């Protein structure tokens, strides 16, 4: 069994890429760039290092609606970077076929809100291909990238967080980065992972998040959560853009003497239960936060699993019920967005309520 070091980052052999902790420790050697540029760099590297990698989707040729695919068509040609017609189901099916022939198919679904026509292909074809063919066939080279999440004014169909639907499908991986440096490493890992992956990019951060990102080729491990802030009173778990909200809540809570441990889950399935469990066994309290509606959101899975594991063990137990601060159970609203969102104040309130339980 792996070490249960208190507060230390744990690496568990079977699933990691070796470079993870090394990247974090090396001195920064990159430029300050934003999220879409980091993703762009990852795509450039992916196409450069594998001549059988392809990038396609709606309007990706000119650079895409969020500029993530800028320069790819010019550099690698329209045989490898091309626009598709407006048909998500077709794009997904096509990508699965391409991947089944041993290629790296990097398909873009323009907004996660539009992914549903492709849902059948992803769930029934991509996720189960290897399993049902007894490992004769697979579409491991498939990566579907899609901007997700609130953007301040997106309304019903430009703001959704559909990650929970995909987390319910064994055979798929779901990965969500929180920042430019993370995005580049995680995306390259997803592209090179031999399983089909859905990679959701927090669109709010495309321009807003700027960070120093190494220019070289590097990968970050999948299925490994990252403790980005150490603490002792409560564990906060989130992913994507929500982490910056959680960080600010942690800062505020610190003023009241509450020490928060903050974990970025990074890969939602298969998720790193060990890291979260170790943290909760230290702090005794858990709060999960995501933009997707609370009922049936991925927070429910984390909540249930941790309650199972941490209920009463080795003298340590959950001091309070697991709190979930998430989107409301309504369609993603238009003008009510500020009410709907799991804001810093809602999180802060819940931190205090949980700590004072």
């Amino acid at each position, binding site marked *: 069994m792996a070490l249960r070091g208190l507060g230390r980052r744990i690496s568990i052999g079977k699933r990691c890429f070796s470079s993870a902790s090394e990247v974090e420790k090396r001195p920064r050697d990159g430029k300050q760039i934003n999220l879409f540029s980091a993703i762009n760099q990852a795509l450039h590297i992916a196409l450069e290092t594998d001549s059988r990698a392809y990038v396609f989707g*709606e*309007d990706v*040729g*000119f650079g895409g*609606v969020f500029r993530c695919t800028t320069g790819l068509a010019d550099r690698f040609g329209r045989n490898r970077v091309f*626009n598709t*017609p*407006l*048909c998500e*189901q*077709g794009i997904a099916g096509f990508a699965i076929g391409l991947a089944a022939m041993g290629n790296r198919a990097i398909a873009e679904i323009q907004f996660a*809100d*539009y992914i*549903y*026509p492709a849902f059948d292909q992803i769930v029934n074809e991509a996720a189960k291909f290897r399993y049902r063919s007894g490992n004769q066939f697979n579409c491991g080279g498939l990566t579907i990238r899609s901007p997700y999440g609130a953007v*301040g*004014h*997106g*309304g*019903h*169909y*430009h703001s959704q967080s559909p990650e929970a639907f995909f987390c319910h499908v064994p055979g798929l991986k779901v990965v969500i980065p929180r920042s430019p440096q993370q995005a580049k490493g995680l995306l390259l890992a997803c592209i090179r992972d031999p399983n089909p992956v859905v990679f959701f990019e927090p669109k709010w951060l495309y321009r807003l998040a700027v960070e120093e990102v190494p220019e070289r080729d590097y990968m970050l491990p999948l299925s490994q959560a990252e403790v980005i802030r150490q603490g002792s009173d409560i564990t906060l778990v989130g992913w994507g853009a929500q982490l910056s909200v959680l960080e600010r809540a942690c800062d505020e809570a610190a003023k009241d003497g509450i020490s928060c441990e903050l974990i970025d889950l990074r890969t939602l399935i298969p998720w790193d239960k060990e890291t979260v469990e170790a943290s909760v066994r230290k702090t005794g309290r858990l709060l999960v936060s995501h933009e997707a509606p*609370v*009922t049936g959101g991925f927070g429910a899975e984390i909540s249930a699993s941790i309650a199972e594991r941490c209920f009463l063990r080795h003298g340590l137990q959950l001091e309070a*019920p697991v*709190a*979930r*601060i998430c989107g*409301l*159970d*309504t*369609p993603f*609203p*238009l*003008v*009510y967005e500020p*009410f*709907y969102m*799991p804001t810093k104040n*809602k999180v802060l*309130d*819940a931190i205090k*309520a*949980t700590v004072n339980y």
Partner: protein
Amino acid sequence: MAVSRLAPSASTLSKLLLHPVSAPPFSRPFSGTAAGDDQTVLTIETSVPFTGHKIDPPSRSVEATPKELLSFFQDMAVMRRMEIAADSLYKSKLIRGFCHLYDGQEAVAVGMEAAITQRDSIITAYRDHCTFLGRGGNLVEAFSELMGRRTGCSKGKGGSMHFYKKEAGFYGGHGIVGAQVPLGCGLAFAQKYFKDETVTFALYGDGAANQGQLFEALNISALWDLPVILVCENNHYGMGTAEWRAAKSAAYYKRGDYVPGLKVDGMDVLAVKQACKFAREHALKNGPIILEMDTYRYHGHSMSDPGSTYRTRDEITGIRQERDPIERVRKLILTHEIASASELKDIEKEIRKKVDEAIAQFKESPMPDPSELFADVYVKGYGVEMQACPGLKLSKSIK
């Protein structure tokens, strides 16, 4: 019906703001002999003949009265003015979110209305502001909805992409490309049961024409002879992708294969009217038909798209000069001496004024009440408890 809407009324400006666009705001008579004569019926040829697929196209000679032409001019001018105003409102951040403008395509909305009644249904995608006006929506409702105010047609909860008007048979207003077409066929299915001689016009774009669900819906409609008219508003660009890059066959009127189709100059309001009238009669007797409206949008796909990275400015200016729908009607009016150039300019000035007033009015409108956030997720009374944050006192029970 087109003629009855043209009866002049002594409506004041404020009434117009709350009444359908198509009621003329002016009651003074126009100069020129033709205008004063209600009985005159002009026969005008459409710009180009219709092209049919598995059907004999209608004649390109269209009948229209002077009053009708004036109302076309006015209706399109209001739509144009509204979209331009929406553009500036968006740039001043009063409208937020996603805003897809229709200017250039007005003839499709206006021509269609002239051929049908409000008992027929229309369903379209997200470029719906002008379709809404055509269905009888007013400017205040439209601007309010764009701004998310309580007085909006969808109570401020829908926004630009989700205008609806139930009493006028306008089923909206859809954000997901192509999803409205099977819905439209379903509407027609219900109409067939009602046996009330009504039809549904299901509009979609050239981008949506490649969606699988369209063909599924078309097959079912043809199988069951549904009174549905599928209208492809082909503005030649699916967001940033030109039609020839997205479709193996850009002859959308032929894509129905076993379903007949008609290609129509969508910038010619009379052609649109003729085609819709023809299609309506066909659908009631024989089932689905496809209309491809050859049209153009001056703006980009949405306000986030400058519209110039995938097409040249020369192309846009060229279309504006040669095929603009409003200019075409203006020329017809002047040629037939229905009104003078300065009279038409006056109409446009008044329209501008009305639009400005509507904007001033909506700015006074309040935002929706916070309780609306939870309203209409389910039917009221069917018990859903909304949890804002478990463990906190923000939970709300819907009784």
